[in-house]
């Protein structure tokens, strides 16, 4: 019995020690594996733990402001509390939204938009639930955070415009980016980011955007933020200072009234745009909240085209305002001289066609100065014929018409001052009659009001100034604000002077076509009228004598135009006015030009420096 017991005991002891040894080895093996994981591969896992723990979030920079030349704000940013939803951080999106709508009511339209975003969005990109929360609602959401998984509140900014209606065409507006806007800027991933869509907002979008900041947050496994680790503030967008004078803009807008009209005022020494009005305008803030069907219809059906910036995109035959270009082309080509006198019998016959002067009785023999002063058509028919269309076209382009300008808002239309080649490229021969009508700015020629103002400025200064808005970026003066920044026009000064004196006579001499543009006070305005036909007047109408464009339907009446600069003795400002279907430039556009120029001069900082007496003087 004892032997058996000892026998069993020895076997047990042997085997128990064996098993115990094996167990020790196994646990020791685990310890060895721990060495591998914790020491050998520790660095790699430490990085992974850090990646788990830390999440980087972008801080949206504030979009830069847009200021006018006196620093008055045109566009800025408002604080905007927003509720966002990160779908991957919640199990039940519906539930979170239902709980949220108990705090902040959501309309059906908002729910529909959120549903749409939910279907298209990625689960880790926040979806905008509601903007412009009150501080109260924001606090309630934060307090109820445990019931609102996936919902987070953040503070963003929204764009605000001080003069939404008045500056719509110039400033443009901002809108959420679409796929075409995805230019690799990490900012694009930020919820609620808006990019410039038109005008200055679009042109200076990159400068206005700024650089995003980064905040590193410690988060737990479900993404809840535990604490902020560090923060690198973003760089806010640059402020853009425009050459623009918003007070002048508003004043001009008022003068133009309800007419479909536009006016551009330039500092003619450097091309800075002081005002650019296109009436009527529209309210672009409606785009942000959604434009109603009725509103959209109203805008698109309105024949005064409120959505189009007429100053850069409206094209008009320049009519008689084009005559300075023809004159300069003729002088430059030596086709005429200053004192050549050409006869006007009231019409010009070319083959079987007869081209009339506006004055049926004719002007008799006149020189360039008189031809401009009386705006004689026949004189310029002849100059055009002598000079040829291609030289006229080249001069017009040099003066800024029918060509691309370096304007710093998008959307300019180039217009057209044709050449023979252009006509031939369309498959037609260039007719001499086409040259004749080109002499008075009709025919194929179309230009924009901005080009007309540039044209006036270039004649006034003899410099190839380019119209532009940008004056300062982030406070720093941009090139182009000094006359020396602009190249010489390369038109001999005596020729320019001849044309200028003609423009002076138009307004200031007895018998000129635009006495209504004469300025009260010490300064003189030089200008030129234009009335551009939009429909050919038939011989029958002309002969019956009953023709009066005032009796035409609105859309067939001629456009009224005026280009001008002042003061004549020391040119400072150039302008163009176009009143669509306004009939006669001398009657409708000229007084507007006078009023605008009076206001421009009154607001001139130089006249302010001279003291209030001077201002009062100018005003009277």
């Amino acid at each position: 019995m004892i032997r058996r017991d000892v026998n069993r005991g020895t076997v047990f002891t042997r085997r128990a020690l064996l098993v115990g040894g094996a167990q020790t080895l196994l646990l020791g093996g685990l310890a060895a594996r721990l060495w591998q994981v914790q020491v050998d591969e520790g660095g790699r896992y430490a990085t992974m733990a850090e990646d788990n723990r830390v999440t980087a979030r972008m801080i949206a920079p504030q979009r830069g402001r847009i200021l006018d030349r006196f620093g008055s704000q045109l566009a800025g940013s408002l604080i905007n509390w927003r509720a966002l939803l990160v779908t991957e951080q919640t199990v039940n999106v519906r539930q979170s939204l239902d709980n949220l709508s108990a705090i902040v009511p959501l309309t059906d339209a908002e729910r529909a938009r959120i549903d749409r975003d939910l279907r298209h969005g990625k689960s880790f990109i926040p979806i905008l639930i509601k903007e412009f929360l009150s501080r109260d609602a924001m606090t309630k959401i934060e307090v109820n955070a445990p019931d609102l998984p996936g919902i987070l509140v953040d503070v963003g900014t929204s764009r605000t415009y001080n003069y939404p209606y008045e500056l719509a065409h110039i400033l443009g507006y901002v809108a959420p980016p679409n796929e075409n806007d995805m230019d690799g800027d990490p900012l694009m991933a930020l919820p609620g980011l808006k990019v410039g869509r038109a005008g200055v907002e679009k042109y200076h979008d990159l400068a206005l955007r700024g650089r995003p900041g980064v905040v590193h947050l410690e988060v737990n496994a479900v993404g809840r933020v535990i604490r902020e680790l560090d923060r690198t503030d973003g760089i806010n967008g640059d402020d853009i200072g425009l050459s623009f004078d918003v007070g002048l803009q508003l004043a001009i807008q008022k003068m133009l009234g309800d007419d479909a009209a536009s006016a551009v005022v330039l500092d003619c020494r450097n091309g800075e745009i002081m005002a650019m009005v296109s009436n009527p305008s529209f309210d672009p803030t409606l785009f942000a909240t959604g434009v109603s069907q009725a509103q959209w219809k109203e805008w698109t059906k309105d024949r005064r085209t409120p959505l189009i910036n007429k100053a850069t995109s409206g094209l008009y035959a320049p009519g008689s305002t084009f005559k300075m270009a023809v004159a300069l082309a003729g002088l430059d080509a030596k086709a005429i001289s200053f004192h050549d006198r050409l006869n006007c019998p009231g019409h010009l016959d070319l083959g079987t066609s007869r081209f009339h002067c506006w004055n049926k009785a004719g002007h008799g023999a006149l020189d360039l100065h008189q031809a401009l002063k009386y705006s004689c058509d026949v004189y310029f028919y002849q100059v055009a014929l002598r000079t040829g269309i291609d030289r006229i076209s080249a001069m017009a382009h040099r003066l800024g018409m029918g060509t691309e300008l370096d304007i710093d808002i998008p959307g300019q239309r180039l217009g057209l001052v044709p050449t023979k080649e252009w006509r031939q490229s369309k498959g037609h021969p260039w007719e001499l009659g086409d040259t004749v009508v080109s002499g008075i700015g009709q025919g194929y020629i179309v230009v924009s009001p901005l080009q007309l103002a540039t044209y006036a400025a270039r004649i006034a200064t003899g410099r190839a100034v380019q119209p532009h808005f940008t004056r300062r970026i982030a406070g720093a003066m941009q090139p182009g604000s000094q006359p020396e920044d602009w190249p010489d026009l390369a038109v001999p000064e005596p020729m320019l002077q001849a044309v200028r004196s003609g423009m002076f006579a138009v307004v200031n001499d007895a018998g000129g076509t635009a006495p209504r543009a004469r300025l009260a006070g010490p300064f003189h305005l030089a200008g030129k009228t234009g009335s551009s036909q939009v429909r050919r007047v038939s011989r029958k109408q002309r002969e019956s004598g009953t023709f009066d464009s005032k009796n035409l339907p609105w859309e067939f009446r001629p456009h009224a135009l005026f280009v001008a600069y002042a003061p004549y003795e020391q040119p400072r400002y150039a302008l163009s006015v176009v009143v669509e279907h306004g009939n006669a430039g001398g009657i409708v556009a000229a007084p507007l030009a006078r009023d605008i120029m009076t206001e421009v001069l009154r607001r001139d900082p130089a006249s302010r420096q001279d003291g209030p007496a001077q201002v009062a003087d100018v005003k009277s």
Partner: protein
Amino acid sequence: MIEQRLWLKSSHDLTGKIFRVNWLFVLLLCALATVGYVALYSAAGGSPEPYATRHIVRFAFGLLIMVCIALVDIRIIARFSWVAYAGGVALLILVLKIGHVGKGAQRWLDLGGQQIQPSELMKLGLILALAAWFHRASWERIGNPLFLLPPLIAVLIPVGLILKEPNLGTAMITLMLGGVIFFAAGVRWWKFILVLLPVPFVARYAYQHLHDYQRARIDTFLNPESDPLGAGYNIIQSKIALGSGGTWGKGFLQGTQGHLDFLPEKQTDFIFTMIGEEFGLVGAVAVITLLILITWGALLVGLRCKHQYGRLVAFGIACNFFFYCFVNIAMVMGVIPVGGVPLPLISHGGSAMITMMVSFGILMSVQVHRDVEFANTDND
């Protein structure tokens, strides 16, 4: 001989018994429970609530039970071996009928608010039953295959029932537990080789009949990165936590993986990861060393015991403890598939703690009664 009998007589005396309890072993258990307290304090985010206080109260209660059981004569315990086994099987059947479902398996019985996992009690019952069976067996009888048939069935019944819950991990542990007791009892080497040879084929067959979630566990174990946000998430996060702990750890309460909830079930199954993250390799190896010491402490009780029943019971309890530890640590390190096995005396969880303390109580009873004369149950 007479002296020894006198001494034995005196061993029935209560004070004597208490002196014979291995207090060094108890001290090791206290150390382990203290590690548990510290880890659970951290798991609760630096608070004794809700885990750490309850843990230590339970341990104190367990300690009391342990000492009480230690004083019960091992021969009385031996008499109830098969009763314990039958009770375990009954509970396993009960859990299949009315058990609580957790993670796709029926594992829990609700006894007046206290949830118990019958498979844990079952293992203890099995140890006692096998020890009782082999206590009767001479070296010669163990060589007889027919003699081995009843204990084999006794092992396979609970294994089958646990598999049915289904709880693959515990079933495997139960099977291995039975195996090592067979081995320690003196079953011949070649029989083990004969049984182990077809294992690869059986494993293959079994894999095809596993539950989807079990198969997913094995699949993600083999390649955790294949499903980093799904089933592989736990393993990956656990390895990240351990690895980022480095040699010295991130410091008490400084573990980011644990405190930021990247670590799943950090107060139960993944408590060891938490320790490894905050106390590094040094802390983790210290805990492993403690576990090795306790395993050897339990084995020593068996080695010093004079009767086969006590030897096998102590050995079984030592192995049971070892399996818990090894499977748990291996699983959080991604060495074996995740299996819902707690780390004894460290993981939060009442039922496992009490079962473990009861088993240590029986172990101490073996220690106290290592020299008692057993009625000869083997009459050959």
